[in-house]
């Protein structure tokens, strides 16, 4: 046992800890703990009232058991008794227990809050500090509600002790993190800013942390802090180290405070006042110059503290991005660190240079270090440092050095750590695309990627290469030739087979003139890989084969034989079987002209942001989200973009068939249902409106909205600002014609003033198994909460059918996502503080609580998700604007999952109460 005699040793506790340490096995430990738990329980329940000392001892034991990793579900009451005690020693242990084992029982919280309130009012600084520490440690909403108005008062009161001020400042900071909406701004803010002038550097340090956080939320309230912070910083950097006494750390003057002040200044643009600005520039120059001075101590603490300030200063310089001179100096300094013997400094220099590379002033200066960085990639022994080097190469890449950087990354990929391969693959793919001058280089690069790291090449990457090849006819011949050659390798990656199959299917004709790559050779080559591939790849190859039949009539027989074989026609996989059957049939009955039309070359893909870039952003969790339209489409649409489009193109007669399964045979009950339906009167009664699938469309735009034995209705919709277009697909599931088919959309009187819907008429006949499409044009005039109804009428086998479906045109469809900084977000959040603007709902989770799913739903809902705004990373914060013809309504969303309770709390703030209300109704049904 250590010979510590400080404070009061609790022998019983020490004995217990020794016992535990002497346990030879996990079982013995558990046994000893259970014995102790039983003992404590009986003591707590016993008739004899326990004295303070015993209570304290047992509570400490419970704490120790908890810290060993066991669950503790009692003792809270005793701890609350302790913290209400007048004896410091008991109070302290009581508070510790409550801080570590936070409990959300509301009765308990009320008791704790009472004790805290008494201690805060006690005017005893030690008690006050304990109470403040407890609030800061627990930081729950209940505590915030109880004390958030009291703490600013303590903080700025003239007679508050320094140490209490420090605790109060950070306590308030913590509460602001948990419940930013609760912390009121008021006249106290000005007085908090003046704490930057305080005599006591500890008070200044704590206050700076608080101000830096609050300033992000409401910069205007703390504007005056800039000049005070610059003045304070200037005094620190020019002081002789000794001046600051105990705040000097290994010959560095107040490093913590300096870092915080520099951080606070990053909440603001460069000062407008010229004198202030030059004073700040002087400070930054002094900090940069000090880095060049010989060290005052050999201790690593000295250099760490000094460089901590230096790096923070460089971050501020990059943030201001307005002083080319400082930026270049910063870059040179970091350049020196790139070759420093301290791994930590090399790591940080690489990281910091990444941001410097994005400034126009320093981009060129960063590029001069390319050789050092490439060398780091090859020689660093620590993977996290190599990862930084990859990041920096990516950041410094431009047209001038792209070939070199891509080549280096490719060669590094061969030996790269598995953990970072996928990311490198994405980066190479992006750089190759972005800086490709000639696309043959691009194609080579991607094929190399697949060769070197095929397993890490995600779908996005190979979809993209196909999109590019299809969109650029100058590279198609080269691509065909190159994939053909690459496929010659005895073992090639499945991703290569996919790319190869697709490209040869489209452009194999461009190389068919060469006898070495004649159609038959191409086909045999592809087919030799067929049996080694997974189902999706085989499906893709089958599509390539049918394309071959169109491109090369001479191999038609060979391919038909393959399609006809039992392994295809009777394949256990439905998709493969269906493709084989359909393709074989198509090749037999269609004339050359029809074949040529159906199997025409793919049209160019619409140019949009690379999905790879989106993926990289997602992977890096960066604050910038991918283009939302893109993301939205990915969520609800096909996961298999190119392939779906391909199928749709090829079998254009059933463009939507595969998705809607129109081809599936109607079940035998159909005729029965027909009879039931035929009784329905001509005008559909409102209560017959189907809204079964309505809510499923809140967060997505495509899918099946209605289905019965006869008819399937699918929707595809797209929205832009206040306009929308909906494609309605009516699929006849029977083999009989639908006659007198008509469909119309109706809205109630109110909705008619809010929403304009224009319907195009449809053909009155739908053949058996066929599908027709109807287009609806939608305009949102003002916010609305009802939904229009789609009425369908047709004759099936003589009986009149009436169907009414509630159309999923909801208010949130007219969202445009808005990106904003956390500063802007909180500012707007505050502006929308009126009670009727906020709607909150707490509800039980209906589905499993998965953060990715929730994220996808929110994106589908239409808002931009803002990362790093909410202090709790488990929460979601989003923003968007609802567009209608008359107005635009800004909208902020916060969703807080509580996985323990399986509940969500959803808060919406918009400038219009009806909008808040409706959006809340829609969204709260989704989780």
């Amino acid at each position, binding site marked *: 046992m250590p010979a510590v005699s400080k404070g009061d040793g609790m022998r019983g506790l020490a004995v217990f800890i020794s016992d535990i340490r002497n346990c030879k096995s996990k079982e013995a430990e558990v046994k000893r703990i259970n014995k102790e738990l039983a003992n404590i329980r009986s003591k707590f329940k016993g008739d004899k009232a326990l004295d303070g000392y015993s209570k304290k001892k047992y509570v400490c034991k419970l704490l120790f058991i908890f810290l060993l990793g066991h669950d503790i579900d009692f003792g809270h009451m005793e701890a609350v008794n302790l913290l209400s005690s007048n004896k410091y020693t008991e109070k302290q242990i009581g508070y510790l227990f409550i801080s570590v084992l936070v409990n959300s029982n509301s009765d308990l919280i009320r008791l704790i809050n009472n004790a805290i309130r008494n201690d805060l009012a006690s005017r005893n600084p030690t008690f006050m500090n304990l109470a403040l520490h407890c609030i800061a440690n627990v930081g729950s909403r209940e505590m915030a509600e109880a004390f958030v108005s009291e703490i600013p008062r303590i903080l700025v009161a003239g007679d508050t002790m320094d140490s209490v001020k420090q605790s109060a400042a950070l306590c308030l900071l913590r509460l602001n993190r948990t419940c930013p909406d609760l912390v009121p701004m008021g006249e106290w803010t000005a007085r908090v800013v003046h704490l930057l002038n305080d005599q006591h550097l500890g008070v200044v340090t704590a206050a700076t942390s608080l101000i830096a956080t609050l300033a992000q939320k409401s910069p205007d309230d703390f504007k005056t802090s800039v000049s005070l912070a610059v003045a304070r910083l200037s005094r620190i950097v020019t002081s002789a180290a000794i001046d600051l006494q105990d705040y000097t750390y290994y010959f560095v003057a107040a490093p913590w405070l300096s870092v915080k002040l520099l951080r606070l200044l990053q909440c603001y643009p460069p000062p407008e006042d010229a004198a202030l600005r030059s004073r700040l520039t002087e400070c930054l120059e002094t900090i940069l110059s000090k880095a060049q001075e010989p060290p005052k101590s050999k201790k690593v*603490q000295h250099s760490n503290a000094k460089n901590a300030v230096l790096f923070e200063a460089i971050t501020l310089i990059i943030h201001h991005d307005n002083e080319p001179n400082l930026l270049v100096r910063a870059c040179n300094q970091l350049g020196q660190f790139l070759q420093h013997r301290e791994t930590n400094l090399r790591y940080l220099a690489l990281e910091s240079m990444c941001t410097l590379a994005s400034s126009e002033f320093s981009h060129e200066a960063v590029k001069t270090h390319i050789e050092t960085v490439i060398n780091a990639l090859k020689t660093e022994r620590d993977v996290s440092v190599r990862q930084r080097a990859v990041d920096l190469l990516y950041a410094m890449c431009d047209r001038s050095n792209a070939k070199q950087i891509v080549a280096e990354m490719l060669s590094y990929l061969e030996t790269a750590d598995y953990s970072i391969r996928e990311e490198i693959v994405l980066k190479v793919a992006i750089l190759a695309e972005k800086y490709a001058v000639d696309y043959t280089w691009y194609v080579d690069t991607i094929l190399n990627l697949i060769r070197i790291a095929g397993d890490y090449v995600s779908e996005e990457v190979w979809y993209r290469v196909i999109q590019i090849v299809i969109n650029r006819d100058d590279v198609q011949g080269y691509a065909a030739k190159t994939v053909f050659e690459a496929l010659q390798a005895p073992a090639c990656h499945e991703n290569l087979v996919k790319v190869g199959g697709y490209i040869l299917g489209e452009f194999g004709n461009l190389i068919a003139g060469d006898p070495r790559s004649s159609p038959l050779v191409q086909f045999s080559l592809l087919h030799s890989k067929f049996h080694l591939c997974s189902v999706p790849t085989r499906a893709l190859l089958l599509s390539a084969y049918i394309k071959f039949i169109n491109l090369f009539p001479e191999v038609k027989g060979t391919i038909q034989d393959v399609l006809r074989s039992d392994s295809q026609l009777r394949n256990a996989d439905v998709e493969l079987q269906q493709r084989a059957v359909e393709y074989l049939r198509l090749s037999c009955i269609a004339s050359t002209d029809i074949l040529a039309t159906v199997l025409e070359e793919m049209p160019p893909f619409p140019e949009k942001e690379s999905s790879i870039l989106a993926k990289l952003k997602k992977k890096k969790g960066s604050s910038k989200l991918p283009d939302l339209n893109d993301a939205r489409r990915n969520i609800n649409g096909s996961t298999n973009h190119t392939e779906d489009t391909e199928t749709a193109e090829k079998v254009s007669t059933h463009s939507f068939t595969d998705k809607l399964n129109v081809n599936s045979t109607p079940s035998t009950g159909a005729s029965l249902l027909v009879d039931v339906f035929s009784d329905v009167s001509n005008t559909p009664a409102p209560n017959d409106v189907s809204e079964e699938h309505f809510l499923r469309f809140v967060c997505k735009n495509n899918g099946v909205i209605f289905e019965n034995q006869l008819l399937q209705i699918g929707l595809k919709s797209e929205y832009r600002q206040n306009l929308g277009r909906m494609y309605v697909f009516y699929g006849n599931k029977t083999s009989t014609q639908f006659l007198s088919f008509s469909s119309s959309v109706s809205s109630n009187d109110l909705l008619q003033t809010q929403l304009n819907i224009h319907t195009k008429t449809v053909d009155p006949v739908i053949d058996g198994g066929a599908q027709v499409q109807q287009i609806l044009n939608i305009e949102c005039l003002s916010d609305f909460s009802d939904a229009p109804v789609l009425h369908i009428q047709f004759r099936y086998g003589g009986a009149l059918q009436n169907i009414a479906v509630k159309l999923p045109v909801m208010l949130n469809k007219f969202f445009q996502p808005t990106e904003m900084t956390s500063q802007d977000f909180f500012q707007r959040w505050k502006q929308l503080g009126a009670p009727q603007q906020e709607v909150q709902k707490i509800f039980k989770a209906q589905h499993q609580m998965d953060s990715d799913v929730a994220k996808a739903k929110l994106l589908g809902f239409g808002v931009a998700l803002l990362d790093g705004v909410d202090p709790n990373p488990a929460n979601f914060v989003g923003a968007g604007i609802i567009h209608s013809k008359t107005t635009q309504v800004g909208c902020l969303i916060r969703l807080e999952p509580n996985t323990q309770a399986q509940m969500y709390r959803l808060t919406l703030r918009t400038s219009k109460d009806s909008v808040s209300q409706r959006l809340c109704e829609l969204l709260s049904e989704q989780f």
Partner: protein
Amino acid sequence: MMQFMLLFSRQGKLRLQKWYVPLSDKEKKKITRELVQTVLARKPKMCSFLEWRDLKIVYKRYASLYFCCAIEDQDNELITLEIIHRYVELLDKYFGSVCELDIIFNFEKAYFILDEFLLGGEAQETSKKNVLKAIEQADLLQEDAKEAETPRSVLEEIGLT
């Protein structure tokens, strides 16, 4: 802001945990397990920083103990490294050449010292003198309180009752 601090031994035993963000016990255990494993797997000369989820991990080993902090993206790694060092200095000064056993047997003291030094994930008082003064004052209060209590039986003292 620091999100949490963990102290664990070379054998992977958790000695102290301090969380500045609300997380469920299950999540805390999961994070601890994952990080202890990651950090222990790293070699001595490696960099003290690593990216982990969307946080930055800063760690340093002192004798048999690892000190490991998680900070947010915009936080300063080097100053966090020195936060760890200052905490070690505080423990060292208080216990007099601190060792792992001191922290095991006096875990509550280690918490009290940490609370005086860091609060809500930010440095509250960086002066070594001021922190120790606060702790010693508290200890004095304890001594007073102890004297006022009645002496208890030997049996009770060794935890047999």
